C-alpha cells in the first residue's frame, strides 16, 4: 500500500463522492415524489392513470438501471431529447426508484384499516383531510423500512453512472487503475468512500426504523 499515492488522490475521490451523493440525493428525492404520486393513484384506483402507473411500475422494476441509462443517454438524443450525463443519471434514478418507492408506499397505504378512513369521515374530515392527516401518516410509518431499503439500494445503484461518463467514484477508480496501475490503492479508496456514504445511511436507517416501530401507529 502506497500511502503517498492515497494522500495525493484523496481529493479526487472527495470530489467524486460529492458528485455521487448529489446525484443520488436528487434522484432519490425525485423518486420519492414519483413514488408518492404513483402510490396515491394506485391506492385510489383512479381510472386510466391506474393502468398507466401499473405499466410504468412493471417496466421500471423489470429492467436494469444500466440499460435504462443507455437508452436515455445514447438512444433518446436520436429522437431529439438531449440531456447531459448528470441529468440523465438523476432521471434514470428517479425512473427506477419511483416504482420501488411506489410499491413500498402503496403497501403501507393498504395496510391502514378501512375503518380509519370511515372514522375520519364521520368526524367531519373531508376526503383530502382524511388522507393527509389520518391515512398517510399511518401508512408512512409502516412503509419506512421499505423506503429505507430503497434509499440504500438506490445509493448503491449510483455506481453504474460511470458507464455514461459521469465522473463518479467508480469512474475515478477505473481511471486511476488505468493510468497508474495502482490497483490496490485505488480500490481501497473506492471501498472507503462507499463505506463513508453507505454506512451512516444504514445506521441512521436502522435507528429510524426502530423509532417508528416504537411509535406504534396503526394496529
Amino acid at each position, binding site marked *: 500500500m502506497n500511502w503517498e499515492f492515497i494522500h495525493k488522490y484523496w481529493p479526487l475521490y472527495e470530489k467524486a463522492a460529492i458528485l455521487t451523493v448529489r446525484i443520488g440525493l436528487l434522484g432519490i428525492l425525485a423518486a420519492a415524489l414519483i413514488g408518492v404520486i404513483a402510490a396515491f393513484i394506485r391506492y385510489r384506483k383512479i381510472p386510466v392513470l391506474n393502468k398507466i402507473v401499473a405499466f410504468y411500475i412493471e417496466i421500471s422494476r*423489470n*429492467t436494469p438501471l*444500466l440499460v435504462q441509462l*443507455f*437508452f436515455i443517454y445514447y438512444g433518446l438524443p436520436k429522437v431529439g431529447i438531449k440531456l447531459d450525463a448528470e441529468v440523465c443519471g438523476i432521471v434514470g434514478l428517479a425512473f427506477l426508484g419511483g416504482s420501488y418507492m411506489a410499491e413500498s408506499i402503496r403497501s403501507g397505504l393498504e395496510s391502514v384499516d378501512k375503518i380509519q378512513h370511515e372514522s375520519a369521515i364521520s368526524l367531519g374530515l373531508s376526503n383530502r383531510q382524511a388522507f393527509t392527516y389520518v391515512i398517510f401518516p399511518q401508512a408512512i410509518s409502516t412503509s419506512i423500512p421499505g423506503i429505507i431499503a430503497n434509499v440504500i439500494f438506490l445509493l*448503491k445503484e*449510483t455506481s453504474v453512472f460511470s458507464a455514461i461518463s459521469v465522473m463518479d467514484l467508480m469512474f475515478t477508480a477505473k481511471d486511476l487503475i488505468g493510468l497508474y496501475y495502482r*490497483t490496490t490503492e485505488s480500490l481501497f479508496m473506492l471501498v472507503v468512500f462507499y463505506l463513508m456514504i453507505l454506512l451512516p445511511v444504514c445506521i441512521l436507517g436502522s435507528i429510524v426504523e426502530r423509532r417508528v416501530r416504537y411509535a406504534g401507529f396503526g394496529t
Partner: protein
Amino acid sequence: MPDLGLDVLFKGSNFLRLLEGLSEAAKISLIAIAISIPVGLLVGVLMTSKNIILKVLFRVYLETIRIMPQLVLLFIVFFGTTKTLGWKLDGETASIIVFSLWGVAEMGDLVRGSLVSIPKHQYESSKALGLSKNQTFLYVIIPQTVRRMIPLSINLITRMIKTTSLVLMIGVVEVLKVAQQIIEANRMSSPNAAFGVFLMVFLLYFVLCFVISSIAGMLEKRWS
C-alpha cells in the same frame, strides 16, 4: 416520422446476436444461481444454529456483501484479486464468483428468515406427536419453509439477471456490449441505430424479467 434506427435490428444476424448476448448474461446468472441455492441453503441452516462464532461470521459476510455495490465487488475481484494474488481471471469467471458470493449471502439470509418465521409451536406440536428431530424437519418445517422461500428466491433470480448488465464494465461481451458493437458497425448506414437497438435491449430485459417475476407473483398468491 423520424428514422428510429429499427431497421438495423433486422439486418443480417443482428437480432440473433443480441439474443446471444442476452444468453451470455443469462448463463452467468444461471451458473451463479446453481451455486447459490445449495450453498445458500447450507449457510441459512447454519445461521440458525446456536454457535455464536458461526453466527457472527456469517453476519459479517452477509453485511459486507450487502453494503457494497455489486459493481465495486466486481472491480475488487476482477482488478484487485488479480493484482494482489497474481492469478489470471477472465471477466466471466470474475462475475460468476461475485454473483455466487452475493447469491449465497442473499439465499442464506432468505433461508434463515423463513426458518425463523416458522412459529415455535410447529416444532413443539411435532414433538408432541412423537416425530423425531429429522422427521420434524423433513415433513413439517421444510415444506413450509420452501413455500415461503420459492417466490422470494425467484425474485432474487430476476435481481441477478438485471445485475448481470454490469458485467459489461469488466469487459464481458453481453447484450449491451453486442448492442454497442452493432451500433458502431452501422454508424454510417443508420446513424440513429442507438435508439432502436437500445430500445430492443430494454425490451429484451423486460420480457425476460417480467415473465420470471410474474411466475413468482403467481406462486406467492397461490401459497399465501
